[in-house]
C-alpha cells in the first residue's frame, strides 16, 4: 500500500491517510479482504505518529470501509457493492465541491459550469486517449 504524506498544504496527516485509503478502495487498488499494514508498521514506514495512523484507521472503520478482525489485523471490508458506490460518489463529491468553490470564486454561474461539464463529457467520449489507460492495455 502506497501512501504519500505532504506537510505543505495544511491538510492534517490523518486526513491524508483516510483520503488516500478511501480512494484506493473506491478505485479497486485495495481489494475487499485485503489486509492493511498494522498501525505501528505504517507509522514507521510513513514516519508519522502512531496515534495519527490509529485515528485514520478508526475513522475508516466507523465509515465501514475497513474492519478489525479478532486476529487483531485490519482488513478492507468485504462490503456489497452499494458501499463501494457510495464511496465512489463520496470521493467524486469532494472533487465537485472543489470545482464549485473555484467556479464561485471566478464568478462562473452554475449553468455555465453544467454546460461545460456536458461539453467536456462529449470531448472525453471522442478521445479514447483521455480515458483510463489501464483499459487500453487489455
Amino acid at each position, binding site marked *: 500500500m502506497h501512501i504519500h504524506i505532504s506537510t505543505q498544504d*495544511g491538510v*492534517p*496527516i490523518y486526513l491524508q491517510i483516510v483520503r488516500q485509503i478511501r480512494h484506493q478502495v473506491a478505485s479497486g487498488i485495495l481489494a475487499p479482504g485485503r489486509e492493511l499494514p498494522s498501525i505501528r508498521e505504517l507509522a514507521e514506514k510513513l514516519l*508519522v505518529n502512531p496515534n495519527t495512523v490509529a485515528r485514520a484507521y478508526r475513522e475508516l472503520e466507523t465509515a465501514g470501509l475497513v474492519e478489525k478482525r479478532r486476529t487483531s489485523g485490519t482488513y478492507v471490508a468485504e462490503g456489497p457493492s452499494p458501499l463501494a458506490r457510495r464511496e465512489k460518489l463520496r470521493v467524486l463529491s469532494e472533487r465537485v465541491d472543489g470545482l464549485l468553490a473555484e467556479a464561485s470564486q471566478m464568478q462562473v454561474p452554475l449553468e455555465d459550469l453544467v454546460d461545460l461539464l456536458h461539453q467536456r463529457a462529449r470531448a472525453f467520449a471522442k478521445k479514447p486517449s483521455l480515458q483510463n489507460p489501464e483499459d487500453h492495455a487489455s
Partner: protein
Amino acid sequence: MNQHILEIHDLKRSYGKKVALDGVSLSVPAGGVFGLLGGNGAGKTTVLRHTLGLLAAQSGSVRVFGLDPVADPVGTLARIGYLSENRDLPDWMRIHQLISYSQAFYPNWDPDYAESLRNLFELDPKAFVRSLSRGQRARAGLLVALAHRPDLLILDEPSSGLDPVVRRDILGAIIRTIADEGRTVLFSSHLLDEVERVADRIAILHQGRIQLCARMDQVLSGHSRVQLRFSSAVSHFPPAGIWIHSEGSGHDWSLVAEAGIENIRAEVARLRAEILSVEPMNLDDIFVARTAGKPLAAGVRA
C-alpha cells in the same frame, strides 16, 4: 490518564540582563509526542535544562513525574533519556566502554536492547567516540538515551545538522518509543516538517514566551489564510481579535485568522469586506504568522 509527565508553571529565567524565559507555563500529558518549536535563541534549550534539573527555577515551578528535578535528581533522571543538542559524550571512550559506562547509571538498562540498537545503528564497538561522524555521534547519543527504556525521552534539536538518513533513524526512534507501551517524548525542533509528522501537541516558544500551545490537529484546523477585498481602501489593518497577522494595502489584504469559518464570515461582514478565498495553512505558515513582526532566526523556514 489525565496525568501530566511534566508541568511547568510561570517559569522565569534571566541571564544577567537578558530575559531567556518570561513566564513559561506548559503541561505535557503522558503517552504522546510533544514538540517544542522556536527559532534559535527562543528559549527551548533553557526549558529543557530546567526539566532535567540542570537549571534551578529562579521563579515559578517545574515538576517532572510530580517531583522537583533539582531536589530529587535520582527520582527523575533515572526515568529520563536525554539527547543534548551538542551530543556531549565522553570523547575518549570506545563505543563498548560508552555502553557499559552508561549502563552503570541506569538500573533499568536493557543490555539486549542496547545491543540491538548498536547493530541497527551500525556502531563499531571498538570505535572511539571522538572519531565518529556527526551522524554516528547522534546515533550513539540516541542509543544511550533509549537503552534504559525511559518513561520520558527528551531530545534537544535531534535532527539539527544531520543528513536525511540519520534523521529517519531519529524519527523512527521517536515513533517506536511511543508505540512501545505509551512512553512520552518531548523534543525541541525548528524543522517544522518533522514536528508536524510526529508531534501530537506543540508549543511555539518565541522570545521566552509561549505563543501557542495546543493539539496538532487543532493548530492546523484552527488557522486559515483569508484573502479580503475592502469596499474602500484601508491603509492600516493591525491584527486584533480573530486576526493574528495581516499583510496588504489599499483594497486587498491577506489575513491570518484563528477562528472557524462561521466566525470569519461574521467578522468579514462586520468589516464590510468581501472574502476572495479562505485556505488552510501548514505549520510553517502558522509558525511564521505567530512569530512575525519579530526577528526570525535563520533556518526557521529550512
